[in-house]
Each structure stands twice: as structure tokens, then as C-alpha cells.
């Protein structure tokens, strides 16, 4: 016998079936389209922004993220369940489409049937199993949401609708299959190719054929209405993420990672800077709220949220959405709250993990820009003082600018003003220039360069803050003043290559400064030294030691540099006991986003929390690659009463002890 089945069995393939079916489909599609058209009007309340360039890359990224569920599946557990559910649902969708294609197209018009024979056997088995996987995964997700109830997971009526509707669709699907099989396939070799359907058919064994037929017909129409209802309800429920989250993968920021938009301060027609109202944001910022699935991955990783500060990246994104759809005139700063806005360390943990390509950080920066540039507001007087110090002395520490290069005098490192013939310019940064603890790092770096025979120069008293902390705090004007001066200065010396020991300087010079016609190569010291070690130019005498390593946010998540620092530590003889939150999951030290200038007055201290994670590894040394991190950890070991237990050090220091 030929393996196949009669499509539209029991419900008929005549006008009385097809007309209401396609009629309802059209209604569902119309409701769907209307829902999104309404939402598009709201997205358009935002400022214009072109997110269609690099189309090929964008499509590729979207297909990867949607079809392969790459970002979703990054978090095992719920992420895996979602991916499996998604794939099985896609299989069911394709299966249904094939049925429609044969019954109402190829067979109807050309008498071509392809759902037969071996293909039908496999088709039947695949769909049956996909349905099973979907039911099991949905059950797992339902258990997680309603029984396990992970902390912070927001559950709304939307979630009940989604779980209920999907369950009903899957369940009615199996019942229809079972009823049909109970009448047509019992005892045939084909029945085994639908194991779940067969089991359902057996369960329905008590009914006679008439009963099965009326059950089948009733459920067939119910299943159809549920499935079309699902399509119709997408824009009006959290189901919309199927469209918006997928679209957001296409619309995602294509980098450079973490680079902020440069405000045109020359444009005298701009009267308002930053965002205090919805219409100041870009349409993508509103769309982001619609793409959010409330998965809370951002919140789970946010250093501010996890130390009792009033910032949840998820909540912030959704507050913007609520304002957009309910009250577009509302003041965003009042809605979100200043303490939340100032709490961000721009560590990017939220944005990095977000499966919906949401850009949390630049929204916060826009709000900060408004507070600073339009209101002259800061999180505290100490931050305002640091800004003023930077204006006067070029550093937020308030040290006299003329002594910026003093640390290097005895080391034979000259400012470019005295000797511009160098291999590389060492852009020292404020902390390594003025802060006693970090001067030790600068000196170590010089020692390493000298051991490798690399001639370095510094800018000395001509160097100023790169402007990163000010920019992240919202002070775009001060940042641009500093950036333009620094660009001119460096270009004036004809520098070919710059090395930094501060990842904030690195990120700023290497990404943000590119907006100011700055093309000099910039390399972070970890990468620079790793190349010197790998090529044998820098010979180390390894000495065994145990340590843990902290990935700074700006070398790690902002620049994907995880291996070079670890290779250096190993080359020095280090054995790394990783903290649970390492690499792209690393927990911030607290000092990013300009927070290095601010007191941390709310909640627990982030740096102490990170130090405690380091202590938990049992290592005696906490290595890092950033002056802000080192400063925070020196403070954090005191806060955690662990000065005897854990010594914070910079990688450069460990290496310099071994040349």
C-alpha cells in the first residue's frame, strides 16, 4: 500500500470548508497587520535613525539569531527550552504549510501529491516528534514560570495567554490526529510512524466511529480558530516578540561595540541635548521596548541591580515602552528616576547577553546627557568637582597638570615634546600618571618595554584625560573638548602606534576618537605584551603562582579580549582559578560609566561583591588589567576585610617581576 493520508479527511475539501477557513485566515492577517501598523505609529514618535546599511550582514545576523537561536541558547535551561520549542514549532509550521501547499495548490491545480510514500512516513514521524518536543518544552517553561518562579521573573496575563494558547493548539493537534488515526490507521503499518498520535488514538479507543468523527470535526475547527487566533493576537500580546525580536536582530547596532553617538556640538540649530522626553530618543529605543521579552537576563547580570541600586536595565527599557504607548508626553527622567540613571557602570553585561539586541547603555547615556548638558546635574558634588578639575587640570583627580609626567622622569622615558622619535606612544591615562598605586603599573609597563627593547615615549604634561569617564557620565561637551585637543596633539607628533594600560583610554581612542579623523593604531598593553612574549622579544622568567583574573568590562565585553591577558598570566607562571562569573559574564568592578568619579551611596558596594567572588576562588592574588579595577579592588579588599587574604595586582606588575 502507498503510505499517505487523505488531507481534509472528515471535514471535507469543499467550499463549505475552504471558504470559512480562508475567510478566517484573512481576518486574522488583517488583525495582525492592523496591530503592527498601530505600533509602527508609536515607534515613529522617536527620532530617525538608519539601520539598514550593511544589509547582507544584518540579514545573516538575523537568520543566525532567529533560526539558530544563538543568543537565546546562550543561557542553558530556559534558553535551551525556548530554542527547542522554537525549532519544533518551526517544524510544525513547515509541516502545516506543506499540507496546505499540496491540498490547496499542487494537488488542486496540477494533481501533484508529494505527501506520500517514504517522504510521508518521515513527514509523519518528524511532525509527531516535533509536537512532542514542543509539548514537553512548553511544559518545562510553564513549570519554570509558574512553579519554580525564578527570582525577578515578571509574569503577566500575557504569559498565561501564551502558555494556554500554545498548549491548546498542540493538544488539539494531537487529539485531531488521534481521532483520525483511530478511524483510519489502526492496525496499519503507517500508524507506527506517528507514535504520539497512535497513543492518543488508543486513548480514544472507547469511542465509536461516529463519536470519533464528530470529535475530530469539532476539534479541527477549534484548532483552526486557535491557530488563526494566535496569528491575530501576535501584535497585541507578548507573542509580538516573534516579530519584533527577530526584526531587532536585523536592526541591531553593528558597532564598533559600545561606541556612542557623537553629538554635533557645532550645529547651532540644536537647542536640546540628550533625552528627557520620548521624542528625544530614536525610534529604535522605542522599538527596543517592544522587542524585550522580559527574560531578565540583563537584570540578572547588572552590577547595579545586584547590589541593591534602583536600576534594572529591563525595567528601564520597559518604562520607555510604557511611556511611548501610554503617556508619550511624560518626562522620562522623572519616570525612570535619577538614581537609576546614575547607577549604570556601562559594563555592557546587559547588552551583551540580551537575546533581543536591545541597546540599554546608549539610552542611559542620552538621559545623562540631558541631565548634565541641559540641567548641570550630576550624581553628586564630587562628580561636579571632578568635571571642574578635569577642565582646569585635565584630570578628574585634581592634580596639577604639570606634574603629569613626573613619574617617568627617573625611568628614562621622555615626553614626545623632548624626543618624538619613539617606537610607540604610551598613552598613560590619569590614574597611572597620578595615582600612587597605578603609577606602579605604569612603571612596570615601562620596565617591560625596556626589557623588550621597545622605545616608548609619553605625552607628559601635554597629556590630558581621554574624556571617557566624563563622556559616560553624560558630559559630551567636556569629552569632545578633551578628545579634539588630544587628537590634534597626537597627530602633531606623527605618532604611528599607541599603547594604553587603561582599557577605558583604549576603547575611547580606538573607537570614539575615530569620529574626529583619528587613524593612529591603538593597542591595549595586554595584546601588545602578549605579541612581544609570543615572538620572543620579551623574555620572561616564569615563576609559579596562583591567582584569579578579572576581565575588565572595557577589555572584555567591549573589545572581546579575553585570551591575551590569560596567555600573559600563564607565560609568567600563573595558574588561574577562574571566578564563576568570568570572560563575557564578568561582574563589573563598579568604576565604569564615570562611576570612578562618584561615591557609591546606595546599596551594597559592587567592588566588595566582586572581591568576595575572587576570594571564593581561594586564590591569593586578584589580577586585572585596568587602573579603575585595581583602584576598586584595593578598596574592595579593605571593605571585605581581606587585605591579608587577597592581593589585587595588575598583570603588568606580575610580568615586570619576572623579567
Amino acid at each position, binding site marked *: 500500500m502507498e503510505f499517505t493520508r487523505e488531507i481534509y479527511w472528515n471535514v471535507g475539501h469543499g467550499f463549505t470548508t475552504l471558504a470559512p477557513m480562508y475567510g478566517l485566515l484573512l481576518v486574522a492577517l488583517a488583525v495582525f497587520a492592523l496591530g503592527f501598523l498601530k505600533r509602527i505609529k508609536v515607534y515613529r514618535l522617536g527620532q530617525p535613525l538608519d539601520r539598514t546599511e550593511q544589509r547582507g550582514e544584518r540579514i545573516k545576523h538575523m537568520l543566525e539569531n532567529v533560526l539558530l537561536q544563538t543568543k537565546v541558547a546562550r543561557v542553558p535551561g530556559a534558553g535551551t527550552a525556548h530554542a527547542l520549542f522554537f525549532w519544533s514549532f518551526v517544524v510544525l509550521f513547515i509541516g502545516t504549510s506543506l499540507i496546505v501547499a499540496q491540498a490547496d495548490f499542487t494537488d488542486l491545480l496540477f494533481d501533484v501529491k508529494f505527501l506520500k510514500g517514504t517522504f510521508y512516513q518521515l513527514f509523519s514521524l518528524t511532525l509527531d516528534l516535533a509536537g512532542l518536543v514542543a509539548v514537553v518544552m512548553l511544559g518545562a517553561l510553564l513549570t519554570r514560570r509558574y512553579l519554580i518562579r525564578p527570582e525577578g521573573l515578571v509574569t503577566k496575563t500575557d504569559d498565561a495567554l501564551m502558555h494556554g494558547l500554545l498548549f491548546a493548539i498542540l493538544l488539539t493537534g494531537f487529539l485531531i490526529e488521534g481521532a483520525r488515526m483511530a478511524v483510519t490507521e489502526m492496525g496499519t503499518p503507517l500508524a507506527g510512524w506517528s507514535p504520539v498520535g497512535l497513543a492518543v488514538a488508543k486513548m480514544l479507543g472507547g469511542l465509536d466511529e461516529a463519536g470519533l468523527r464528530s470529535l475530530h470535526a469539532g476539534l479541527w475547527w477549534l484548532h483552526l480558530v486557535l491557530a488563526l487566533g494566535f496569528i491575530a493576537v501576535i501584535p497585541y500580546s507578548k507573542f509580538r516578540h516573534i516579530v519584533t525580536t527577530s526584526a531587532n536582530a536585523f536592526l541591531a547596532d553593528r558597532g564598533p561595540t559600545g561606541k556612542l553617538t557623537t553629538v554635533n556640538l557645532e550645529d547651532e540649530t540644536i537647542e536640546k541635548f540628550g533625552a528627557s522626553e520620548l521624542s528625544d530618543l530614536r525610534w529604535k529605543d522605542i522599538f527596543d521596548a517592544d522587542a524585550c521579552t522580559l527574560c531578565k537576563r540583563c537584570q540578572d547580570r547588572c552590577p547595579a541591580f545586584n547590589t541593591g541600586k534602583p536600576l534594572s536595565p529591563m525595567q528601564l527599557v520597559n518604562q520607555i515602552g510604557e511611556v511611548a504607548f501610554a503617556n508619550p508626553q511624560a518626562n522620562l527622567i522623572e519616570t525612570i528616576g535619577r538614581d537609576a540613571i546614575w547607577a549604570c557602570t556601562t559594563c555592557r553585561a546587559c547588552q551583551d547577553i540580551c537575546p533581543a539586541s536591545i541597546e540599554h547603555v546608549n539610552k542611559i547615556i542620552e538621559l545623562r546627557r540631558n541631565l548634565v548638558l*541641559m540641567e*548641570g546635574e550630576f550624581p553628586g558634588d564630587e562628580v561636579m568637582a571632578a568635571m571642574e578639575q578635569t577642565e582646569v587640570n585635565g584630570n578628574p583627580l585634581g592634580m596639577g597638570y604639570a606634574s603629569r609626567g613626573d613619574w617617568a622622569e627617573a625611568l628614562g622615558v621622555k615626553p614626545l615634546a623632548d624626543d618624538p622619535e619613539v617606537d610607540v606612544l604610551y598613552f598613560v591615562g590619569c590614574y597611572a600618571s597620578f595615582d600612587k598605586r597605578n603609577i606602579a603599573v605604569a612603571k612596570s609597563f615601562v620596565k617591560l618595554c625596556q626589557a623588550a627593547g621597545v622605545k616608548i615615549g609619553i605625552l607628559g604634561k601635554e597629556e590630558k584625560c581621554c574624556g571617557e569617564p566624563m563622556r559616560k557620565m553624560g558630559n559630551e561637551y567636556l569629552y569632545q573638548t578633551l578628545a579634539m585637543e588630544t587628537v590634534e596633539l597626537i597627530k602633531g607628533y606623527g605618532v604611528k602606534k599607541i599603547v594604553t594600560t587603561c582599557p577605558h583610554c583604549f576603547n575611547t581612542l580606538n573607537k570614539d576618537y575615530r569620529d574626529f579623523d583619528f587613524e593612529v593604531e591603538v593597542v591595549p598593553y595586554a595584546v601588545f605584551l602578549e605579541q612581544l612574549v609570543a615572538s620572543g622579544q620579551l623574555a620572561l622568567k616564569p615563576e609559579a603562582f596562583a591567582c584569579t583574573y578579572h576581565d575588565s568590562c572595557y577589555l572584555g565585553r567591549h573589545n572581546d579580549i579575553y585570551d591575551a591577558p590569560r596567555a600573559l598570566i600563564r607565560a609568567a607562571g600563573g595558574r588561574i582559578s577562574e571566578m564563576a562569573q568570568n570572560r563575557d559574564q564578568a561582574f563589573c568592578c563598579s568604576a565604569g560609566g564615570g562611576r570612578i568619579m562618584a561615591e557609591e551611596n546606595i546599596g551594597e558596594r559592587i567592588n566588595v561583591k566582586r572581591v568576595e567572588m575572587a576570594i571564593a576562588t581561594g586564590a591569593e592574588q586578584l589580577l586585572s588589567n585596568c587602573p579603575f579595577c585595581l583602584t576598586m579592588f584595593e578598596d574592595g579588599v579593605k571593605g571585605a576585610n581581606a587585605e591579608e587574604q587577597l592581593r589585587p595586582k595588575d598583570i603588568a606588575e606580575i610580568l615586570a617581576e619576572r623579567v
Partner: protein
Amino acid sequence: MNILICIKQVPDMESKFKINGEGNWYDRADLAWRMNEYDEYAVEQAVRLKEQVKDADLTVLCIGPDQVTETMKKALAMGCDRGVHIADADSYKREPIEIASMIASFAKDKNFDVIFTGMQSQDRGSAQVGVMVAELLGIAAVTTIVGFAYDNGTINVKRELEGGSKALVTTTTPVVLTCQLGLNTPRYPTLPNIMKAKKKELLTLAADAGSVGSRQETAAFYFPEKKGGGIVLEGDAAELADKLIHLLKEKTGVLA
């Protein structure tokens, strides 16, 4: 209401100071410059007064070389309406009475209702200019104010006195007020105001101290002699206690 604010550009106190060639003041090289802290309180109070009474015109005045206009721009960005730069490259040599005379000769026919200035400069620190201006103009002066309230022509200020006590003074305009730390927290200029400040009137006038000439001469200018600094003791508690007792016996009479 017509308000004058007298400010001075001073070096940032964190700068590396050197003595100049003449040996009578600090060398200007390698210094970072800013507005005298006390004058910032003066500017802020004037701007707040304008915000209160609405109808007021704020003139900021500064004496010194051309570079002082940079500091004046900050005052304009904070909210002053116009700037008057009295050009004098040798202002650092001037005695308080000469500076006060320059200000008074500018202010005498301008009918200022209130003149705000810092209670002293961070570099010379004579604390005389404000009161001398009042004297030369024949109007009242209240010094070292840490509180200010204006109500319909009446000014109530709080003065800081020695030993932490305060005095409440009521005065009417015209008056010179010299401002002290604690009066207010100066604002951070907003970007639109920084932009507007670039277009505000900034007049440069020649210095005119009238018949007043210098009467003093700086005899010498030097860094204080380095005296013994503090001692940091290190070691465990028992060791520290022994060292401390030893030191107290050796160097002081407290255990005698």
C-alpha cells in the same frame, strides 16, 4: 537691578609653583588657571538673585592679562550678562588699593545696586579689595557672607565670625558683599548657556587706578622652610606601642 560681580583668575592650588625671575611673585609657567573659589560663590549668588528678581543685569568684571577672559567666559556661562575686562598685564603686582581703585573708577557712575565679590583671593589672600571698593564708592560693605536673602530692596545676610559664631546683618542697596565658602554651591554651566556665553558682550577697557599708586614693595618671596614631617610607624600593635612610648619619651614631655 544692576549688579556687578568682581572676579579674579587664580592658579589652581594643586599647581607646581615656582618663584618668578623678579623674586616677587610666582612664575606663571606650568600653572592651570581657574576662577577664584570665593568669586564663584559671588557669581552664583548674583545669578540666583537675578533668577529671583527676574529684572536684573549682571556685569562680571575681571582685571588681568588677556587670558583672564577664559575665566570670565565661565562666569558668563553661569549666567552673567556682560563682561568687562580691565586689561592689566601687571595686575599681579598691584596692591589691593590699586585693584579696588580700578574697580571703583569703573563702577562709580554705573549705579550698581549690589556688588558681589569673593571675600579674598586664593593667591594673594589680602581680603581687602571688596571693602576698599565699598569705601571708595562710599557705600556699605558686609564681608564673609555665608547666607543671603533679598526681599523687596532689603538684604539679609549671615556673616561668618571668628570661632564659628554667625552674625545676621540687614542692609539696603547699594552694598558690597564679599562671599565666603558655605554661601552656596556654584552651578555647572549648561551647554546652551556655554554656547550663549560665547556671544555675550565682553568689553576690554584700559586699566585706570586714578591717582592711586603703589605704596608697598614685596621684599622677598619664598617657600616656607621645610619642617620635619609626620612619622608613620609600621609593625604589629605591640611593636607600635613600644615605638610610640619611646617617641613620646624622647621627643615630648607628655610622659614626664
